């Protein structure tokens, strides 16, 4: 099982990294980089097989539930591995130099980055919807930890929580959709579902349910890839240190949604319920992200909005469901990772060299750090879609796809993409101008950038350049992915392949318009972009309203229920018991036919003792008396167990009763000897008595009814009795506890553990607070300070 082993290797290494990082920080990142690079090499070696039938591997997880870890290396996975492992390895090298020698975040980040890479790898390789879901949520969790960092900064915490809430919300709805789809299809295997869908045998008589499941699955894709209206979490997640942003938000995690759409696109792109939201929201996201990027002053946030825009672009390409669009999709997928990651790395280097990444403060960096400027421009060219970069190849194919498709949809989308690209050119220009141009009179600093920070970015950007020239190679992967998709249009469309030069045509004209328009917009459009904002509508404010609304609701609810009065809590519990199972018992319960008053004479005195103690308890005025009476009831019940021949139960009952008494006595030392109000008012006492009496009667009635409810001999008891000697036990109770129901026992003792920990924390918490003293955690929202700390 080579594929599984590759994924598992990431987890194993991640476990070792914290220790290694303590020994040597760069070595830890280096080990991660080696593993990631090794994964890439492995994938490239497998490429011939992957582009053909694919390399599959699976492990039965819980066969009874249809759960299996099933992975497959195919063209799409290969393309993503280039980003996840290839770009990932470069970013690990970058991170080794980025995290300062005294940075406390390095050890955790190294381990988490490798874990994340493993999870992402599993996600892109997943060949089964449930496998995909598992890895999907694991990437969400890991990215939460990565964005949240040490949790010391409010900004990080808020960004991490927002990313987690949004992506997990989508993930859960996706799980619903997956289960629904799996039930409709009778399988969770993606190839089988795809085959059934293209053959038209997938739930032909349940179109509504199918549509619902598709929409639910899309929710996952849209949230994870930050599509409208879920986009705000991505720019906020920029609170993370730059290597993490570069990896999560340029190369990998945010592409998960795109990968999902690409994975299922060949099966469902014909359904309007699939392509309308994907293409529509994708287009809107592309435009909005581009527009918002034009107003950012923080270079990293500018890039973040650029990512939002590009993700929308990718969604359009993979959602359209035609061959050329898919070719363009794969090209853009690769291109985006290869230009966005180096751009982030450049921003990180600028941040480190100048101490700021605000484009209003940066000045003259292009003169002082020519290498960095050339690097940034190289990556920027690909982002703007200029030849001879891979970005150009992809963008041209994208125009071509929708121009060839024609029709209303084709033209709307093509013009939308043109507008989006125009904005892309504009924000690229803004980025390059903001980072490197000489604007003011006072040039900002610019210490030399260490090789470890610039080399990975160079490698990445140069790969983007090389891939532009090596378009036929990209075409190989893309064609393998696009094989099952309908070609649409004329023979030219069927023959179309990715290449740097397709001759002069409409698509080239589009590129020209986008570049010229974008440059003009950047040069003269500042008044336009500066203020245009739709008042009152903000997705971020929507998110905040939802979250604060939930919190208010929770506070209101707890405020009403948790009022600190023990009688009220007891009343709530008892009334629930009376209201819910009570009527059922009254309506459907049948008393057993023969109900003897007792079946052993010894039960009479012991039972009487219990009853008398319980009655006396209600009249007790002192707490200590009450506790003793409760003990008497408990011992009495233990006695009944003895009489009925259950020594195990009796022993446990006696011991627990004793321990409870002791615990009560401990607590009683801090409580008044008497109950608070010896003479409570009648209007309080009567309802209390009524609720208690009804509750007691209900429990007693239930016991009687249940004792007669079993009409057949229990199915498992015989098996238990027969199996006990095999389990090495002559005591059946013990055999049940530690053999037949061992899992239950583990669960129960875990609860005990939680109770003990809870009690201890409640009692000891105040003391620990005092001991800690007044060390205030500085949770300022200024990100430069945090970045400073990360840098060491």
């Amino acid at each position, binding site marked *: 099982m080579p594929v599984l082993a590759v994924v598992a290797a990431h987890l194993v290494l991640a476990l070792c990294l914290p220790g290694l990082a303590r020994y040597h920080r760069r070595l830890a990142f280096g080990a991660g980089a080696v593993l990631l690079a090794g994964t890439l090499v492995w994938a490239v070696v497998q490429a011939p097989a992957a582009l053909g039938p694919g390399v599959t591997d699976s492990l039965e997880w819980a066969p009874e539930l249809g759960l299996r870890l099933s992975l497959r290396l195919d063209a799409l996975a290969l393309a993503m591995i280039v980003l996840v492992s290839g770009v990932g390895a470069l970013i690990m090298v970058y991170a080794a130099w980025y995290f300062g020698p005294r940075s406390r975040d390095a050890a955790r980040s190294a381990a988490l980055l490798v874990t994340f890479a493993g999870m992402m790898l599993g996600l892109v390789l997943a060949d089964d919807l449930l496998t995909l879901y598992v890895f999907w949520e694991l990437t969400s969790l890991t990215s939460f930890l990565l964005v949240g960092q040490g949790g010391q900064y409010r900004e990080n915490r808020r960004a991490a929580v927002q990313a987690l809430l949004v992506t997990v919300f989508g993930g859960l709805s996706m799980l619903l959709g997956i289960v629904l789809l799996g039930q409709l299809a009778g399988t969770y295997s993606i190839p089988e579902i795809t085959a059934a869908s293209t053959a038209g045998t997938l739930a032909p008589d349940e179109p509504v349910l199918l549509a619902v499941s598709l929409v639910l699955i899309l929710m996952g894709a849209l949230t994870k890839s930050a599509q409208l209206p879920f986009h705000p979490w991505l720019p906020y997640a920029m609170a993370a240190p730059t290597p993490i942003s570069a990896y999560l938000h340029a190369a990998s995690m945010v592409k998960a949604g795109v990968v999902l759409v690409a994975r299922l696109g060949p099966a469902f792109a014909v359904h309007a319920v699939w392509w309308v939201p994907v293409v529509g929201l994708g287009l809107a996201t592309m435009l909005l992200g581009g527009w918002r990027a034009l107003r950012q002053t923080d270079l990293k946030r500018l890039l973040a909005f650029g990512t939002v825009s590009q993700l929308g672009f990718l969604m359009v390409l993979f959602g359209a469901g035609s061959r050329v669009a898919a070719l363009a999709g794969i090209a853009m997928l690769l291109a985006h990772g290869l230009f966005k990651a180096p751009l982030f790395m450049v921003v990180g280097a600028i941040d480190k060299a100048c101490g700021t990444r605000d484009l209003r403060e940066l000045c003259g960096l292009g003169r002082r750090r020519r290498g960095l400027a050339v690097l940034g421009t190289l990556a920027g060219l690909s982002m703007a879609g200029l030849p001879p970069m891979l970005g150009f190849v992809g963008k041209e194919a994208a125009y071509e796809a929708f121009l060839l498709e024609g029709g209303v949809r084709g033209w709307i989308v093509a013009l939308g993409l043109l507008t989006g690209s125009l904005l892309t050119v504009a924000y690229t220009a803004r980025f390059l101008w903001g980072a490197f141009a000489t604007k003011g009179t006072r040039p900002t600093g610019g210490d030399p950038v260490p090789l470890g920070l610039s080399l990975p970015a160079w490698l990445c950007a140069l790969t983007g350049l090389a891939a532009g020239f090596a378009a036929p190679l990209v075409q190989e992967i893309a064609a393998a992915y696009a094989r099952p998709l309908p070609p649409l249009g004329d023979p030219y469309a069927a023959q179309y392949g990715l290449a740097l030069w397709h001759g002069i045509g409409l698509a080239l004209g589009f590129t020209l318009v986008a570049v010229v328009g974008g440059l003009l917009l950047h040069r003269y459009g500042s008044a336009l972009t500066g203020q245009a904002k739709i008042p009152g509508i903000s997705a971020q404010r929507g998110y905040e309203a939802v979250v604060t609304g939930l919190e208010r609701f929770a506070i209101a609810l707890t405020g009403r229920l948790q009022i600190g009065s023990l009688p009220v809590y007891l009343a709530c519990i008892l009334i629930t018991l009376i209201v819910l199972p009570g009527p059922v018992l009254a309506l459907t319960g049948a008393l057993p036919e023969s109900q003897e008053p007792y079946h052993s004479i010894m039960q009479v005195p012991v039972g009487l003792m219990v009853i008398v103690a319980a009655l006396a308890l209600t009249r007790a005025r002192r707490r*200590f008396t009450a506790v003793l009476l409760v003990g008497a009831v408990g011992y009495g019940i233990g006695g009944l167990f003895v009489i009925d021949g259950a*020594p*195990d139960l*009796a*022993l*446990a009952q006696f*011991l*627990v009763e*004793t*321990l409870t008494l*002791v*615990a009560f*006595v*401990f*607590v*009683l*030392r*801090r*409580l*008044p*000897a*008497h109950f608070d109000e010896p003479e409570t008012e009648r209007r309080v006492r009567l309802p209390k008595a009524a609720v208690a009496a009804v509750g007691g009667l209900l429990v007693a009635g239930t016991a009687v009814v249940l004792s007669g409810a079993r009409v057949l001999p229990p199915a498992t008891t015989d098996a238990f009795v027969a199996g006990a000697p*095999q*389990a*090495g*036990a*002559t*005591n059946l*109770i*013990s*055999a049940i*506890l*530690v*053999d037949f129901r*061992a*899992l239950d*026992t*583990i669960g129960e*003792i*875990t609860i*005990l*553990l939680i*109770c*003990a*920990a809870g*009690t*201890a924390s*409640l*009692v*000891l918490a*105040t*003391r620990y607070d005092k001991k800690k003293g007044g060390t205030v955690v500085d949770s300022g929202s200024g990100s430069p300070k945090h970045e400073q700390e990360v840098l060491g």
Partner: protein
Amino acid sequence: MTTSRQYDDTRPGGPAPAPEETHWSAWDQPSGRWMLPGACPEPRERTLVLEAAARLLFPTVLVFSVFLLFEGHYGPGGGFSGGLVAGLAFVLRHIAGGADDPGSTMRIRPPAVVGTGLIISVLTGLAPVLWGGSVFESAKWRLDLGELGYVDLVTSLLLDVGVYLLIIGVVLDLLRSLGSGIARDAARAGEDGPPGGGDR
């Protein structure tokens, strides 16, 4: 657990009072530090009968609890009951020895005991997977001891041992938080009325 070292009288911390240094006021100070606090509690808080009883009973009860643990497979008992009995032995010691019972040279951290118990139990459940079995599968060996008969070894006993440890830990945690913790808070708040408290 509080094993061997409890019986170790040569701990570095407490000076064992030599006979010639004995003052008449302190002649009845407990010297067997393996069980009761080396420091003499407030005279009015002491009950010598209880202390003596605790000395006698504590080891006996612990042994009995271990017996219950092993007996579980054949008769009433098991990890839960055994753990509770051992826990009650500690309760007795706590009551006799006072709130700040340093007890032994080894400071036991109850959460560690609880965690150890849970870990043992969970690992017992998972271990069979390593040998290709299913989760919680148990194996049984019979050791023949010739004239002495035989001993059955069942792997599920380990699960019971985990439960045993966990229950002891829970009881110790209760003693730490509800027993010593509350007492210390009370002392700090300046209340030192008799146990049970007066009317406030």
